[in-house]
């Protein structure tokens, strides 16, 4: 990445994880719905893309987009992680919220039907990913109180994250309304790249960091 683009921090990352998904959403042939539903869809797409971006906002992944200093990268990693993990954790509920303004199925019944359709592979993947995301979020929040060294926590965090992104990517491709061909390729490429980056840093790309940042 050239130095001009690096004058404003995180511009390449924003283009890759906000701009590109928005472009793919705009160009996709998914049927347009009400403003509320499309707003939720956009929010979920951005939240998922930014979760993919989390792997590139790390010590091992920052080199992909030109490399920022580690302090701002970690701050951004935490901000994006907590904010959009929360969005993704509540997205099953938000999906049924528009039903309060329409006739037809009761929103609570829609939610129950959705999360109890265990015959659906996509739903099972989503439930597993949801549990993993909750675990990742909680263990990050209380990291300093956990009885383990930072290196151990980092290893577990990385393994759980890789598992999460694999399950979540499959879930999104299987059930996503906007995951057509281009969006699916985008997700697969970034998720595979993320897991490779993580594997590289775990196998020996980076020395273990014992500090807080």
């Amino acid at each position, binding site marked *: 990445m050239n130095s001009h683009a690096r004058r404003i921090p995180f511009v390449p990352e924003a283009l890759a994880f906000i701009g590109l998904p928005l472009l793919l959403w705009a160009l996709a042939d*998914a*049927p347009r*719905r009400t403003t509320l*539903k499309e707003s939720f869809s956009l929010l979920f797409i951005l939240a998922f893309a930014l979760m993919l971006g989390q792997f590139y906002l790390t010590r091992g992944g920052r080199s992909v987009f030109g490399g920022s200093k580690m302090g701002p990268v970690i701050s951004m990693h935490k901000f994006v992680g907590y904010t959009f993990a929360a969005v993704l954790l509540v997205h099953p509920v938000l*999906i*049924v919220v*528009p*039903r309060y303004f*329409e*006739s*037809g*199925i009761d929103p609570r*019944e*829609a*939610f129950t*039907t*959705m999360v109890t*359709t265990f*015959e*659906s*592979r*996509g*739903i099972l993947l989503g439930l597993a990913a949801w549990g993993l995301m909750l675990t990742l979020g909680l263990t990050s929040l209380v990291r300093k109180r956990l009885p383990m060294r930072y290196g151990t926590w980092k290893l577990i965090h990385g393994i759980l994250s890789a598992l999460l992104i694999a399950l979540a990517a499959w879930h999104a491709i299987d*059930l*996503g*309304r906007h995951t057509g061909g281009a969006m699916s390729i985008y997700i697969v490429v970034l998720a595979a790249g993320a897991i490779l980056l993580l594997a590289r840093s775990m196998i020996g790309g980076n020395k273990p960091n014992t500090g807080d940042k």
Partner: protein
Amino acid sequence: MAIDRIDGCIGCGTCVSTCPTDVIRTDPKTGKSVITYPADCQICHLCRMYCPVDAITITPEKSIPVVVSWG
């Protein structure tokens, strides 16, 4: 065709059971709903209204106006 497409089906089968004219069936391979007999669609919107994830799109240009009874 009135029922147009199904995006993001979770395979709960609600639309299959609500459709009065048996337009939608469950694909045994994927477990998801598929539009099998689109010509039979009576544009009643029941499948769309009762789909828990709002996966069904009905083409607006071919919708018939709702008949409202007065008096």
